[in-house]
């Protein structure tokens, strides 16, 4: 019933990556995680048009290309712009929030302090997207 999602996680923090992986395995979800440590790496992955992710989880605070820049590149691409991109960040800066929605995001989730809260948020987020119909190019 639930769709198996291919998730591109763009995150430079090793522990954050571990958190997502552990959450998915703890929750016994059958989603596939593709990891990218930064924007450039993510863009490389996204060049394989036959293997595009279903959703993208994007951290805003990254070296080199930051989250907002990456988002802009994504939205300018005729194919990639259809991939739902959810911001996963610590920044509750109103400016960032506004900017992201302006460019076009599918969600903006704040990383909570407590791991339990994190698990709960990710569970809901993935449950939501696994019941959504997505554009397949």
């Amino acid at each position: 019933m639930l769709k198996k999602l291919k998730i591109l996680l763009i995150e430079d923090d090793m522990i954050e990556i571990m958190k997502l992986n552990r959450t998915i395995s703890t929750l016994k979800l059958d989603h596939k995680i593709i990891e990218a440590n930064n924007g450039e790496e993510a863009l490389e992955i996204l060049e394989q048009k036959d293997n595009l992710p279903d959703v993208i989880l994007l951290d805003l605070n990254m070296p080199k290309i930051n989250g907002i820049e990456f988002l802009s590149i994504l939205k300018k691409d005729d194919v990639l712009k259809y991939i739902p991109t959810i911001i996963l960040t610590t920044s509750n800066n109103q400016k960032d929030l506004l900017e992201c929605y302006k460019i076009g995001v599918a969600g903006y989730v704040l990383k909570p302090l407590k791991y339990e809260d994190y698990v709960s948020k990710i569970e809901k987020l993935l449950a939501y997207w696994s019941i959504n119909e997505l554009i397949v190019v």
Partner: protein
Amino acid sequence: MSQEQVEILQRALKREKAARKAAEKILEEKSRELYFTSQRLEQLLEEKSSQLQGVFENIVDAYVVMDLQGNIIKFNEAATKLFGYDISREEINVVNLIYKEDYPYAISSFMELQNKAYFKNYEARVYTKSKEVKWVHINASLIFDKEKKPVAAQGIVRDITDQKASEEKLIASENRLASLVVNLDSGIVLEDENRSIVLTNNKFCDLFNIEAKPSDLIGMDCQAASEQNKVLFKNPDSFLQRMRVIDENKKTVLGDELEMLDGKILERNYIPIITGDTSKGYLWTFKDVTLNRTYRKSLEAQKQKYYSIIANMNLGLVEVNNNEEILMVNQSFEKISGFKQEEVLGKNARELFAIDGSSDVILKENVKRLKGESSSYEIKARNKAGEILYLLISGAPNYNIDGEVIGSIGIHLDITAIKNLEFQKEKLLSKLEKSNDELQEYAHIVSHDLKSPLRSIHALVSWLKEDNQGKLDDISIQNIGLIETTLEKMEQLITDVLNYSSVGAETSLKTEVDLNSLVNELVSILYIPDHIEIKSLNTLPNIIGDRTKLQQVFQNLISNSVKFIDKEHGSIIIDVEDLKSHYKFSIKDNGIGIEKKYHDKIFKIFHSLKKSKDSSGIGLSIVKKIINLHEGEIWLDSEPNVGSTFYFTLKK
């Protein structure tokens, strides 16, 4: 008698006879001569009389004969014309002719005629037949018969009406002249060759304090009078000496000034009056010019005063005509512009100084001047050295005495320094804005960077706990719990610091905020324990401000009250008072209270009084910052163990 004697007598008789005969002969001759003479005389007389009669009848003047009762017997042609009566047709008595008022004079003249047989130069008025009044001049004499008895009177009547009229005019104008002289505003004295006063007037007496009528002074000696009057002058001797010199020279002197002891200043003129070659005397005139002199002096003083104000004021002054040509600049303007007056006179002020569009500004201002308007404006200009100046000019139209605009006067204040400060301020402000933005950005990044490790630690600790379930003892589990609590506190701290730094930076829109509904919503959202009651005494007003921040103020204060209530029945009372420009709010609780010495401290950042899990010590400093942003103040009344009341004001 002897022969001899007889002979002598006979001879003598003979001589006597001869002598008588000779005498008779002479007498006869003489009488014949006399006869002829008288004959001739008579003839002559007759001739003369008829001649005379013809003269009388034919003369231009009227000739009148009347009998002694005054009945007119004869009018010559001129008389008929003069009086208008035809005496061949009507009878007229001289009484009909005499002007009523002149009657007594006429009678006395008639008496004179009877006594002396003539009168001369009788001048009086007469009536003509048409009742016209005429002035006549009459010479008259009696006419006698052969027995020397007067029988009639004759007179020559001359019409002097016109002459009389012009005489009267002359008298009138002489009178006018005389009264003019008497009442003249200048004191005058006319003296003759011997320095005797011929004429003077009231003003002269006034000026020299003479208590006499001008007419009483006539004949007085001027020399003596001036000796007497010299004491009236400040410098009596030079007064006299000068007078003597003038008198000796006998030439016109105008505009001498005399200072009198009582402070009066007189202007003296001396004019010899000469008709043809003959001197008619000397005219002295004296005029009181004290007022003129003092006017002139004070005018001069005023002028000097304004001149020195203009010259010394620290404002540049420029006068231009309607063609913008410089007519005058003061010293300050010379200093401001670097030009000397002579370098800029006649030059176009606008073209000489204005740069960067200031020329257009001036042209616009010039139009206003022509309409008579004054105004102030700023221009950018260049001085002689080419340095840029900013001038604040207050310009006003300049008028001539006919009220026409002939140019304008501009007062120039050099505001270059102020202007530069302004520019510097603007630069600083934009720099500050930028660095504020950067700071804001920095705060977010830092807080993100600080929070990330906390999250990671939390995750790792959680995993430790999870992965070692059953392997850890109670103390380790407790310690792990403490680590988690500390992490939360650390995170809260970072959040609060970020909030505090955001308060001033975010320039969110100010809107009208309904504080009443805001507080009501807040009370329903906040966690309020059952034993605490919140009351609003009055409806809270609407205020212009930042809704989110105002909410934060009430939230922080109410939460604080809730947090520190230690009584069984808690009470929080919210009230408002309308001050003139502000509202004063109060939030009163019956909590633990705060000691006086901490009242100032609690509003400072990181000064939490009671260390607790949910108090970072930043809450009240954020509240104070928000209130200050709304131009308000915050303070409190408190008694330990009784409660606290926080007051704050917000601008309407």
